[in-house]
C-alpha cells in the first residue's frame, strides 16, 4: 500500500471524463426542458375523459430521467467536503421547514438547505442537493419525488446567483430568489397538474380554484398559482440562506473554494496570510 504516491496529480488527467460529464449534464437539462415543452404543447384538452394518465407518465419519466442524468453527471466529482454538507442541507430543508410550519406563517421554506449549499459550494452542488434531497425526502413523503427536477433547478440557479455576486448585497438576494421562483414555478406546475391533479395545500388550492372559476385550464390555473406563491417563497428562502451564510464564522465559509474564488460573500475579502 505504501507504493501509492502521497500526492495527487497536478491536474485532472482524465481527459475523457469531463466531456462525458458535460454530455450527461446537457442530456439531463434537455430531458427536463423537452418534457416541459411537450407537456405544455400537448396538454390534454379533454381532461373530462379521465385523468391525464398519459401526461403523468410523460411528466414522471421525463423529469426523473433528467434529474437522474444531472445527478450522475455531478455526484462522482463532488468533493467530500460538499458531500457531507448535503445531509445537513436536506435535514435543514425539513427541520427549518417544520420550524416555520410551527410559526403558522403561510410559507413552506423547504429549500433553505439547498440554497445554502449552492451559496457555499456552487451550482453543481446545489443542483445535486436538490435532486438528492428529493430522493431522500421521498422516503417519508413520496409525493416530493416528482418535483426533483424543480429542486435541482432551484439549487442550480442559486449557485449561479452566488457566483454572479448577488449574495454580496442583501437586496439582491431576494431579487435572485424571486426570479428563481418564477422558473421553478413553471417547471413544477405540470407535475402538480398532471401527476397530482392539484396542489397539496388548501390555501394554494383555493387560489387554483379561483383561476379555474375564471375559465383557465388546470395547467394554466396551477401555473398562475405557482407564479404567485413560488417567487415570494423563494425570495424569503434566499434571504434566510443569505442570513445563515453571513452568520457562519469566516473560517468556516472560507473553507469552501467556491466562496473564496468568486468572492460570494461581501466583506469577507481573503486576508493576506503574510508569514
Amino acid at each position, binding site marked *: *500500500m505504501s507504493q501509492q504516491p502521497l500526492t495527487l496529480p497536478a491536474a485532472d488527467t482524465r481527459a475523457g471524463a469531463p466531456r462525458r460529464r458535460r454530455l450527461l449534464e446537457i442530456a439531463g437539462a434537455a430531458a427536463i426542458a423537452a418534457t416541459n415543452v411537450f407537456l405544455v404543447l400537448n396538454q390534454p384538452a379533454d381532461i373530462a375523459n379521465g385523468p391525464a394518465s398519459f401526461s403523468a407518465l410523460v411528466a414522471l419519466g421525463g423529469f426523473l430521467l433528467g434529474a437522474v442524468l444531472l445527478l450522475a453527471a455531478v455526484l462522482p466529482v463532488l468533493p467530500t467536503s460538499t458531500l457531507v454538507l448535503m445531509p445537513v442541507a436536506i435535514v435543514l430543508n425539513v427541520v427549518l421547514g417544520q420550524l416555520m410550519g410551527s410559526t403558522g406563517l403561510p410559507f413552506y421554506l423547504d429549500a433553505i438547505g439547498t440554497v445554502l449549499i449552492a451559496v457555499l459550494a456552487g451550482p453543481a452542488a446545489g443542483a445535486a442537493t436538490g435532486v438528492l434531497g428529493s430522493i431522500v425526502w421521498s422516503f417519508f413523503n413520496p409525493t416530493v419525488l416528482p418535483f426533483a427536477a424543480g429542486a435541482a433547478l432551484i439549487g442550480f440557479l442559486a449557485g449561479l446567483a452566488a457566483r454572479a455576486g448577488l449574495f454580496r448585497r442583501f437586496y439582491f438576494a431576494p431579487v435572485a430568489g424571486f426570479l428563481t421562483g418564477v422558473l421553478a414555478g413553471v417547471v413544477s406546475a405540470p407535475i402538480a397538474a398532471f401527476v397530482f391533479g392539484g396542489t397539496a395545500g388548501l390555501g394554494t388550492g383555493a387560489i387554483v380554484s379561483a383561476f379555474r372559476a375564471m375559465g383557465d385550464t388546470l395547467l394554466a390555473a396551477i401555473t398562475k398559482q405557482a407564479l404567485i406563491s413560488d417567487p415570494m417563497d423563494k425570495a424569503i428562502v434566499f434571504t434566510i440562506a443569505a442570513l445563515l451564510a453571513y452568520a457562519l464564522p469566516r*473560517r468556516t465559509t472560507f473553507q469552501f473554494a467556491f466562496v473564496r474564488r468568486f468572492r460570494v460573500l461581501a466583506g469577507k475579502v481573503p486576508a493576506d*496570510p503574510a508569514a
Partner: protein
Amino acid sequence: MADGGALVSAASASARIRSFSFHGDAAAALRDIRISFLPGTLTAVLGGSGSGKSTLGKLLAGWLRPGHSGVMRGSLALGAERLDFDGGSGDPRINPAVWSARVGYVPQDAAAIISTVRSNVAEELAFGLENRGVPRPEMIRQVARVAEQTGLSGLTERDPAELSGGELRRLAVACAVIAGPEVLVLDEPMASLDAAGASGLRNLVAGLLDAGTAVVVLSQRADVLARSAGRWIILDGGTAVADGSPADLQEGAALRDAGVVQEGGAAGMPGTLPAPPALPAVLELRGIGFGYGAGTPRGGAGPGPAGDPARAAVLRDLDLTLRAGEIVAITGPNGAGKSTLLRHANGLLRPQTGDVVVAGTNIAGVPAGRIAARVGVLFQQPRDQLFERTVLREVSFGLRRLAGAGAGDRAQEALAAVGLAGAAQAHPAELPSSQQRLLALATVLARRPAVIALDEPTVGLDRPGLERLQHAVTGAAARGAGVVMVTHDLAYARANAHRVLALDGGNLREL
C-alpha cells in the same frame, strides 16, 4: 534559517512548519515548529486551549491539507519522502487517503471519525478497507485482528451509536489503526474517560508502541499518559516554546505559561473553603421525585430517538437547600442523574413529586425562560448556548430588558470577570473551546442570577480557564449568589466548594 539536512532520516515522520494559516485568517495558526517522530516512541504535545495542538495534529495526519485547508510554508516528510510547500499554487497536493493511511489521527470528538453510515462496529471498521478495495477475505481477517488488538472483539455486532465513551474512543483508534499507520496522533485521548476507559486506552497505546508505531498524544493536561511519554513538546500561541524530556520540563515555566493543567496538583486552594455566613436559602428542592418514561411531564417534547430510558426513578425524595453565598458541589458516577437534578433548578425539567422553591417562590407553572432571571445554568455544550455574531452581543443579549441602562456596563463587567474583555468583537464560534465555555459562563454572570447552576464546568478547561472559572464562581458567591455545580472531578469539588454532596441512588448525602 538553516534549510534541509535537519530532518532525521530514521524518523517515521517529520515536519518543519514555518507558518500555517487557515484561509481567511490574517494570523498564522502555527509557526516555527520543527518536530519529528521515531518509530516506537511516545511523544506528548502539550498546550492550553487554542495553542494549536489540534491544528498541528491534523496537519501532520493529512486531515488539514496545505493549499486545500489553508496556506502552509514549510515541509512535511513521511519516511524518505519529503514535500515542500511555499504557499503558492505550484505546491504538491496531498492525497489524504494515502497520507492518512500512514499517519493516523483520532480526533478529540471520537464520534467525528465514525462514518455514521455503517450499522455495526465490524462494518464501521471495514469502511476504510472497503474504500480501498481490499478483498473481502482479507478484510474479515483484518477486522478481526484489529478488533482483538483494541479490545472490541466482543462488540463487533453493536451499533456504533450506542457505545459508551470509552468504547467509542477505542473504536475511533481502531478505525485509524486498521490502515496500519506508522504514526498515530491521538487528540485529547483521555478526556472524559472514566478509570476503566483510561486504563484500556493506556494498554492499547502500549501495544502500539511495542509494535513500532510512533504515537503522538495531544493534551492540555499533563496526565498519566502524557507523563509516560519519552518526550514533551510544549505549544503556546501556535509555536513550540519548549522541547525536551518530561523530567526537564515538568517544573519549568513554559509548561505553566502555556496553560497546561498539571494533574495531581491541586487545581485550587487546598482544603475546603471556610463556611459562609448563614444567609437565607435561595434554592430549595423539597422531596423531589423524578423518573424518565411514561409519567414525564415533558413527554411531548418532540420526536426524539425512540426508546425511553429506563422507567426507574432517577431522583427519589431528594432534598437540597442552597443558601446565598454558598458553593455546593454534587458528584456521582456517570448516569447517576446529576444533570437531571440540575435541570430541575430552572424548570427545564419539572419534578413528578415535590417542590422547587427559588428565592422563596415555588416555580411550578412558571416558564423556564422567566425562571432564568433568577437561576442561570451553564450547560456541558457551550456551543448550544451561543448564537450571536460577536462576543459582546452574545453577553448583551436580553440584558437591556433586565438591567435597563446599566446593560452595557454589566456586559463589560461579566466579560472582564472571565477574562474575555479583549475579545469583545470576536465571533463566538471562532474562540477556542475553553473560551467558549467561559463566554457561556459570562452570559450567565451578566444576568446576576440568585442561583448559578454549573454542569461539569471544568471539562475541557485549560489552566487559565480553570483559574477564571474559580475566580468568577467565588466572586459570584461573594456577591451573594448561591452556586451549585455538578462535577465528576472530586478534587476540584473539594477544593472549591463549601459542601460536597454525592448523588447516589437518587438521593444526596454529605461527603
